[in-house]
């Protein structure tokens, strides 16, 4: 009748076990996988950014050197011209243009060449513009070159209205100074710096000490504009700095900056953060992909493993239950064996009485046959004997019925039970034995206890067993007493059997419900009684507990649900 129910419960149990296994099997590897992946990504990222930074630093350093080189070569060119020619000879246009062509053939960077006297008058010029005669005494570059004798300007517009910069050198001839100035082709100069590429977005450019672009910035930044990111740049006088900065639009970038000694400009090499991090992003994507693919594999395998395992556990559980019911049966049989000896003894007493009565009746018949009158007295004696025989037969049948009731293989059959009456019946079965051992059994079960729904036969087995144990415990005591008390709450009723007997050793108390554990002498107990009780009470949805103190007594408490839900 419980087949479908137990199947449902079985399936539920199965999926619960599987869920538990799955979560445990999956969680641990997943956490480990995450830790491993994130550690790897972390180290990869650190390494990657270090590498990018050093790459940028290297580029910045190389190009700074290149540009310094360029400046010093161009300066040397001019100094050489100034040194090898006199002011007077250079004033001549033919001489100047001759020298300029030689100069342009050594370096196409030169755009023009001019000669100035000590007042800053442009005395001779060779180049695409017409600049002779202008006075430069107030020009910044002229003031600077007077002081320093070599000057390289920032990019400026000047008289020609196009961005350019100049290199000027000072020459002192017979105590009078004159100046030589050359304009550098910004296009040519730009190409030196602008063509540097690192990754997709990596670029290099020059800014002066006020943050004005000296070369174009490929990602947007024209000559002579102010670099909006200038404030974020870090610099050190002699070495290349690399750092992670934030540009004016909020994007992050990796930068390397170095200072040019000759002009005080900054060499900036810069790469977008995401460009620099693109190998990292690829690696992370691959890692995530692997985690997902591997994870899917693990989940699949774990699912099958867990199913298999849960299946086996469920089977084992079913087997265990089977064993449990077999154990109950075995316990019952053992109990029957033990009891039948006692029962035989119980039956012998009434038989003995009956034999006496029959002998008495026979005697009376003999007397009558021998001639005694069949008077009222004789008849009275006879009927008394017959009554007595009837009484004794009833006694026997009570005993055998009790035994049968006990030995019957009982399917769990749920009926309404009045606890008070049930205990009364069970006590009646052991009362005689208790009486023989001089034991008082006090029934203090509340007659007002609610009816419960449970299996009477199984409960009978439980309480008989507990009572027999109690009798065994108190039988060597003079004032042996067994009390059966009760209590009730919303869900459970409590029936407690307390004795004042020998008590149970704490060591043994732990194992008391273990099958085949017995404290009785060999051959006296099977060790199945209490384990069977335990199995039955659990099976009926209740529980059984014990407290005991050596030489004071034991209390067995049986909690029974008021309505049993047969759990299988």
């Amino acid at each position, binding site marked *: 009748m419980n087949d479908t129910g137990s199947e449902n419960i079985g399936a539920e149990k199965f999926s619960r076990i599987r869920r538990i296994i799955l979560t445990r099997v999956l969680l641990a590897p997943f956490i480990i996988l995450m830790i491993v992946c994130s550690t790897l990504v972390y180290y990869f990222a650190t390494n990657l950014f270090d590498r990018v930074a050093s790459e940028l630093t290297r580029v910045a350093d190389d190009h700074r050197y290149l540009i310094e080189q360029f400046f010093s070569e161009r300066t040397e060119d001019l100094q050489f011209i100034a040194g090898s020619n006199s002011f007077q000879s250079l004033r001549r246009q033919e001489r100047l243009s001759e020298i300029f062509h030689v100069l342009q053939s050594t370096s196409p960077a030169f755009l023009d060449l001019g000669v100035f006297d000590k007042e800053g008058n442009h005395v001779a010029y060779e180049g695409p513009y017409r600049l002779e005669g202008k006075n430069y005494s107030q020009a910044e570059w002229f003031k600077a070159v007077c002081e320093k004798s070599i000057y390289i300007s920032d990019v400026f517009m000047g008289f020609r209205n196009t961005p350019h910069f100049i290199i000027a050198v000072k020459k002192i001839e017979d105590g009078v100074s004159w100046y030589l100035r050359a304009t550098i082709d910004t296009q040519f100069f730009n190409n030196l710096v602008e063509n540097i590429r690192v990754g997709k977005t990596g670029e290099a450019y020059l800014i002066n000490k006020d943050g004005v672009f000296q070369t174009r910035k490929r990602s947007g930044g024209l000559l002579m504009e102010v670099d909006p990111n200038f404030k974020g740049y870090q610099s050190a006088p002699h070495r290349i700095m690399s750092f992670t900065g934030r540009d004016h639009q909020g994007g992050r970038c990796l930068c390397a900056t170095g200072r040019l000694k000759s002009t005080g400009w900054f060499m900036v090499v810069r790469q977008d953060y995401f460009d620099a991090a693109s190998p990292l992003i690829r690696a992370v994507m691959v890692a995530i992909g692997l985690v997902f693919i591997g994870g899917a594999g693990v989940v699949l395998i774990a699912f099958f493993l867990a199913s298999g395992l849960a299946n086996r556990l469920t089977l084992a559980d079913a087997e265990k239950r089977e064993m449990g019911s077999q154990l109950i049966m075995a316990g019952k049989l053992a109990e029957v064996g033990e009891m039948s*000896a*006692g029962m*035989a*003894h119980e039956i*012998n*007493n009434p*038989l*003995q*009485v*009956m*034999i*006496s*009565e029959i*002998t*008495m009746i026979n*005697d009376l018949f003999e007397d009558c046959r021998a001639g005694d009158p069949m008077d009222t007295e004789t008849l009275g004696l006879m009927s008394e*004997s017959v009554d*007595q025989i009837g009484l*004794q037969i009833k006694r026997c049948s009570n005993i055998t019925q009790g035994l049968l009731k006990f030995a019957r293989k009982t399917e769990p059959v749920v009926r309404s039970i009045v606890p008070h009456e049930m205990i009364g019946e069970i006590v009646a079965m052991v009362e005689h034995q208790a*009486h*023989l*051992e*001089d034991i008082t059994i006090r029934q203090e079960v509340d007659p007002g206890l609610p009816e419960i729904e449970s299996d009477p036969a199984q409960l009978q087995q439980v309480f008989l067993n507990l009572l027999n144990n109690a009798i065994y415990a108190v039988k060597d005591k003079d004032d042996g007493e067994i009390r059966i008390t009760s209590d009730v709450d919303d869900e459970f009723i409590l029936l407690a059997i307390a004795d004042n007997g020998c008590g149970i050793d704490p060591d043994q108390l732990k194992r008391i419900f273990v099958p085949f554990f017995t404290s009785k002498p060999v051959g006296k107990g099977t060790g199945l009684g209490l384990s069977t009780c335990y199995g039955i009470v659990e099976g009926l949805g209740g529980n059984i507990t014990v407290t005991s103190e050596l030489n004071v007594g034991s209390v067995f408490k049986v909690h029974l649900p008021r309505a049993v839900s047969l759990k299988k």
Partner: protein
Amino acid sequence: MSNVQLLIVDDEERFLKTTKALMEKRGISTKTAASGVEALRILDETNVDVVILDVKMPGMDGEVTLKRIKQTYPLIEVIMLTGHGSVDSAVVGLKMGAFDYVLKPCDIPEILEKVENAYVKKQAMENKIRKVQVDRMISHPMAVFDKNGKD
């Protein structure tokens, strides 16, 4: 035969009553006791030759009662009344000096026979003792006084 004094000890009252009636009918004067304690009291008060003693009784059980009887009245013969399941207790009883045992349930004639045998044995024993005493009296007449004095 008729002068056997029998005591039946059993906790089954009806058994006591009927058996007493049957025994008296057969000329055996019978007393009954429902417990070991009562049995010892009766033995103390009256003269009994044979005791039929149930092994399983509440209070003082058969074995203890037997021990007491044999201690105090070694000449009284005891027949143990045991069930099938407790033949062991019969063996214990015999070792402790019971004359015989009867398995429950048993016929009255069987009990009767064993009672008679027991009585015969007791009488034989008593005769033997008397004879020894007489012999001794004859050989050492003066010793009678010593003996009596000692007893």
